[in-house]
């Protein structure tokens, strides 16, 4: 359904050209959830924003690659076409913080209705019914009576449901969820994860879940893509990634998770810092922090296919 | 270090302010003509670049043939005097009130805040009118009105600064060590609010000049035969159809002086006290 090939997004900053997304390829099938995992600054949010072409005004630009949604190429579309036909309608996004994602001075009825109105899904008298219907789908309690209420009258979990309602109103094909649970309490995180799961079952939409939390990714996704310094270093089924991580970075990331029953106080942090994306090193970008670095790592590593659609970009796997 | 100090100085603004200062201090000697001298022969003489004008009366002459340039230069004196006294007294009273209220808090502070509220419920011009009615118009009335209007502005801001300072350790140590209140005020509080006071005073200059001009224009401020820019505009107003330069030239003098002091004040604020930017 969604096929991204060699996507490159650059930010033209005053201190130089920042290669935020540097050759990312990924695929999302209908009804599938792909977890896009990485540290902050790895380019995962920028990848999500590139799909909607919502890059920082003036500085951000997609420099190359292709984004195809149901066979339609998105990179060539005009800004107006993106707004009218893609954003909110075919691809929708859920932001990180439900506390700030809703406009404080408009009623939730207005806000949930806004995408429906703008994309011509429902108008006039039918709008109210459509809004209530969407809010029921995200299981907002007593939705019908609360259309006139304002965001501050809802709890954090309820607000995230409202944000989700705004996103799924026009039954988009693809939902980009950027850290949808990070700002929430653990119990509410579980509720929102369940909600996303049920939304997917009902609508068959594809989901890209952007997160730094491998736990959240594991509980929601069938496949995971691990990002590092603007590139995808490893993709594959959840099971394979967790059991037999192939890329040294993924291995380090997994080792850094505190596990139940592990020896106390043994939290392995990865030594060093990710490279600057303004002038990234040639070759493997993880090389400087990699425990199994070789001479060859000075050249860009090839993507090596392992079993069951599991692949990783590392010289170690070539040998 | 010295180069750093003068970076981005608005030289043009300083030049204008210096010119106003020189005109105000220079007295009669600088003026091309006696500003009060009548010369009915050159009544309504236009500025030099218009037919009928010449360099003798470079900016033209008014209905009585008085040289406008000379009168503008002479009028700067009133602006400077009013600005000086008004700022000295409103800043002084406001700073003391703000320091006392901020430092002691409690009922002193409550009383001050109520006073500020009361003061702000009477528009400055209305206050000027009632004062002019009671005391008669004149320079001292103008200064009094400005002081009554602006002390609250200083007091409110200084009070906030002092309240923030009071929480600092060294003030608390000084109090515990038994340093006298007067010493704390002079040695510790005053030096810390000095920059703020300078910035506020500079920012006030433009407003004082506008205010004096407005009052003099209404006839509540400077009286004939003294010369003030506002008064010149008031005189020229009835001849607006005969001589447009009569109402434009003094206005430009007001505008340039205000503009210069505002630009300089903004620069000083960014230099000395950037957190005052929201004023």
């Amino acid at each position, binding site marked *: 359904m969604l096929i991204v090939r060699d996507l490159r997004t650059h930010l033209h900053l005053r201190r130089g050209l920042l290669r935020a997304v540097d050759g990312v390829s990924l695929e999302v099938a209908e009804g599938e959830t792909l977890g896009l995992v990485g540290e902050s600054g790895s380019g995962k949010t920028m990848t999500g924003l590139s799909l909607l072409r919502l890059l920082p005004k003036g500085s951000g630009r997609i420099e190359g690659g292709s984004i195809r949604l149901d066979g339609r190429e998105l990179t060539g579309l005009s800004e107006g076409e993106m707004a009218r036909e893609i954003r909110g309608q075919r691809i929708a996004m*859920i932001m990180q913080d439900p506390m700030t994602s809703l406009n404080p001075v408009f009623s939730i009825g207005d806000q949930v209705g806004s995408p429906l109105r703008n994309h011509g899904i429902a108008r006039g008298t039918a709008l109210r019914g459509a809004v209530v219907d969407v809010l029921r789908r995200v299981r907002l309690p007593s939705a019908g009576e609360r259309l006139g209420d304002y965001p501050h009258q809802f709890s954090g979990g309820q607000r995230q449901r409202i944000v989700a309602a705004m996103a799924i109103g026009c039954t988009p094909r693809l939902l980009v969820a950027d850290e949808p649970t990070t700002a929430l309490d653990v119990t509410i995180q579980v509720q929102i994860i369940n909600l996303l799961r049920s939304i997917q079952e009902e609508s068959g939409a594809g989901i890209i879940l952007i997160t730094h939390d491998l736990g959240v990714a594991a509980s929601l996704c069938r496949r995971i893509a691990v990002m590092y310094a603007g590139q995808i270093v490893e993709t594959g089924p959840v099971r394979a990634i967790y059991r037999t991580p192939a890329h040294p970075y993924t291995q380090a990331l997994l080792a850094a998770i505190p596990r139940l029953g592990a020896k106390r106080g043994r939290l392995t942090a990865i030594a060093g810092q990710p490279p600057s994306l303004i002038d990234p090193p040639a070759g493997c970008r993880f090389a400087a922090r990699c425990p199994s670095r070789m001479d060859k790592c000075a050249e860009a590593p090839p993507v090596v296919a392992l079993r069951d659609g599991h692949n990783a970009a590392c010289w170690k796997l070539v040998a | 270090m010295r180069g750093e100090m003068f970076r981005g100085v608005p030289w043009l603004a300083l030049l204008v302010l210096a010119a106003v200062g020189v005109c105000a201090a220079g007295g009669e000697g600088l003026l091309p003509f006696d500003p009060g001298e009548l010369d009915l022969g050159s009544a309504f003489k236009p500025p030099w670049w218009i037919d009928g004008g010449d360099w003798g009366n470079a900016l033209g002459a008014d209905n009585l043939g008085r040289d406008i340039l000379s009168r503008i230069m002479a009028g700067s004196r009133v602006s400077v005097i009013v600005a000086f006294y008004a700022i000295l007294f409103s800043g002084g009273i406001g700073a003391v009130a703000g320091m006392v209220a901020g430092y002691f808090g409690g009922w002193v502070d409550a009383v001050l805040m109520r006073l500020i*509220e009361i003061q702000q419920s009477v528009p400055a011009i209305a206050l000027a009118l*009632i004062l002019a009615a009671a005391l008669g118009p004149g320079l001292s009335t103008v200064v009094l009105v400005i002081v009554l209007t602006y002390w609250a502005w200083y007091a409110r801001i200084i009070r906030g600064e002092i309240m923030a300072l009071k929480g600092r350790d060294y003030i608390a140590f000084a109090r515990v060590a038994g340093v006298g209140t007067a010493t704390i005020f002079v040695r510790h509080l005053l030096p810390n609010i000095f920059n703020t006071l300078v910035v506020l005073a500079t920012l006030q200059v*433009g407003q004082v000049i506008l205010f004096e001009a407005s009052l003099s224009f209404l006839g509540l401020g400077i009286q004939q035969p003294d010369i003030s820019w506002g008064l010149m505009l008031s005189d020229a107003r009835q001849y607006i*159809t005969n001589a447009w330069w009569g109402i434009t030239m003094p206005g430009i003098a*007001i505008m340039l002086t205000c503009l210069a002091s505002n630009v300089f004040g903004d620069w000083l604020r960014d230099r000395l006290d950037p957190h005052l930017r929201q004023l």
Partner: protein
Amino acid sequence: MSRFFGRRLLQGLFSILGASIMIFVISRLSGDPIVMMLPNDAPLSLIEEMRRNLGLDRPLWVQYLIFVQHAVVGDFGNSYRWKMPALQLILERLPATIELAVCGLLFSVMVAVPVGVMSAVNRGGWVDRVGRVFAMLGQAMPAFWVGLLLILLFAVRLNWLPAFGYGSASQFVLPAIALGWYPVAAQTRIVRSAMLDVLDSDHIRLSRALGTPEGLIVWKYALRNAAVPLLTMLGVYFAAMLGGAFVVETIFAWPGVGRTVVEAVFARDFPVVQAGVLFTSILFVISNLLVDVSYGLVDPRIRDAR
């Protein structure tokens, strides 16, 4: 909400009370208030009667209470110039002043909002730069001079609009611009910085991500947020309009409170001055009060917080 309103009302009443003391004290500054309250040629019997009426032989605070007692029932004495109760005169002139102040405020907001919004949307663009130059100039031009220049240009030179008078719609234009000129710069700055904040917020980003047209995002969803700080300041600006009205009304021969009071000062018509100043102060306090209430309408968070 009602408790909040009650508290503000009490504060307002207190301010008005304070203002009345101030006005009372100032009016006693010059010595014998009788001299100011009566024309120069008033007969001695009238002076004596007035003195008794006002209780000038009693202590100052008693005199103040008498002043308040009279003021509360609307008795500020008679205007000797207009031969009618001072309060009645002021009330007759009040609508014209309020009309002018509202028009001035409307003008300033109508300029400041679009310029502020466009400056924020196109930060560093030509609207932003031109707006900044005008703001600097605007802050340096006194209202009466702006009025004179407007008369010179539009009435004398171009002959498009009447130079003075009150009645027709065209006579509103120049006074409203002269009055609204000064606050435009400050209002533009408020709108601009509020818009910059809002346009950078998560909810606007979400709106964009869901395909809301840019026009709706700016002028509907962002602007209502940015309007809150402007609205909180409107009372201050309306009050400034009332102050500016004294000057602008005088230039444009506008039959409002401002011009009446200015004329009364020169005619030594003290009852009118007192009534006019006190009334302006009351209006001043009321406008601040109304704004506190009205901006709850725009920001639901504030509405509920009360």
